[in-house]
């Protein structure tokens, strides 16, 4: 067989092999990752979000204070 074709066939075998192997490993890793995260995450993350909302209201208060101070013409 032509050596170029030989190389092509080999490249195809290695290539498709690698693509499939890599994506298969990625599937397992992804599933594992999703399970770990589900296991680590408490069902209700409400408290976290509530905290965050508080933080944001804090930031908002500061921002309002700054805005109040800046009576000058603002850059849009």
């Amino acid at each position, binding site marked *: 067989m*032509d050596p*170029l*074709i030989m*190389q*092509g*066939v080999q*490249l*195809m075998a*290695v*290539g*498709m092999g*690698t*693509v*499939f192997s*890599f*994506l*298969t*490993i*990625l*599937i397992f*890793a*992804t*599933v594992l*990752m*999703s399970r770990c*995260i*589900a296991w680590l*995450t408490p069902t209700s993350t409400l408290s976290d979000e509530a905290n965050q909302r508080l933080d944001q209201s804090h930031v908002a208060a500061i921002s309002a204070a700054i805005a109040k101070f800046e009576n000058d013409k603002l850059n849009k």
Partner: protein
Amino acid sequence: MDALQQLWAGSGLAQMTLGQGLMIVIGLLLLYLAIVRKFEPLLLVTIGFGGILSNIPGVEIATGDGLLHMVYVVGIETGAFPLIIFMGVGAMTDFGPLLANPRTLFLGAAAQFGIFATLLGAVALSATGVLEFDLKQAAAIGIIGGADGPTAIFVAGKLAPELLAAIAIAAYSYMALVPIIQPPIMRALTTQAEREITMVQLREVSKAEKVVFPLLLLLLIALLLPSAAPLLGMFCFGNLMRECGVVDRLTDTTQNALINIVTIFLGLGVGSKLSAEAFLNTQTLGILMLGMVAFAIGTASGVLMAKGMNLLSKTPINPIIGAAGVSAVPMAARVANKVGLEANSSNYLLMHAMGPNVAGVIGSAVAAGILIQFTGG
């Protein structure tokens, strides 16, 4: 008078070669496809216009110190522009549907068969003397089957810059032609009953999964397949910026100003390679033909893979979404949705097809890494 003679000698009418004239016509054709037929306009408008500019005779634009040549050297020869665009694509990609159904990664893997079958086709044409392609060129042509613009430009720039323009044009044109190329193949390979399969509603994916996924992918690349690191690394970087939620202003610029600026210059730079010598030859015909074959084989492989998976699994997959594994985001997923609706008017496959669709992006970036590593990029 001397001056009039100089004026005439400098005019396009006096200097233009037949090749340049034909290339200008081809540039106009690309603009027609982009503007009137809406073929991937972001790239085909810029490539087409760049091609016309580059074929204006007697002026340095695509050569020497000309702007388009400098753009090519700085942005494409180095690989910088396709990598930045890939970062932007990452910043626009939602891996949610893939994470909800990771099995669809198999579909994205199968569709890469189009790449390697086309590579084999190119070397076969070369071995039989029909056309002449070396292994690097064959690999660069094969990547058209990845249906991914920046990946194709990156690989062609590394392996076969002389074919860059033809490969980029083939890749973007066929991505635009997906609604014409894919449906007949889908229908030929599936039964009506298969096309009617409805799939279970995708589960909701948590923010944490979306944040961790690009890092997981990056680590696997680092451990197993470093040759895919430039492309997938930048892709994961864009995606992490998107999902991490703490750098929204960077994500916003990446998705807009940055990717738009780079797209303009990428297109002009690719267009600067549209010279008659490089384009008007039988190789280009071969590339266009092989590119079509690549898309068709990729589509078929995806569909057949889905059918194969249905033999082994209890949760059925509608084989139509296998076709979306070629990437061509989001066109291929929309086409799958449309064909699915034809078979069953209440069967919305769009989100199910987004999984293989983005899997195809990963798959062809992996294939690109292998091609560059093994043919010595």
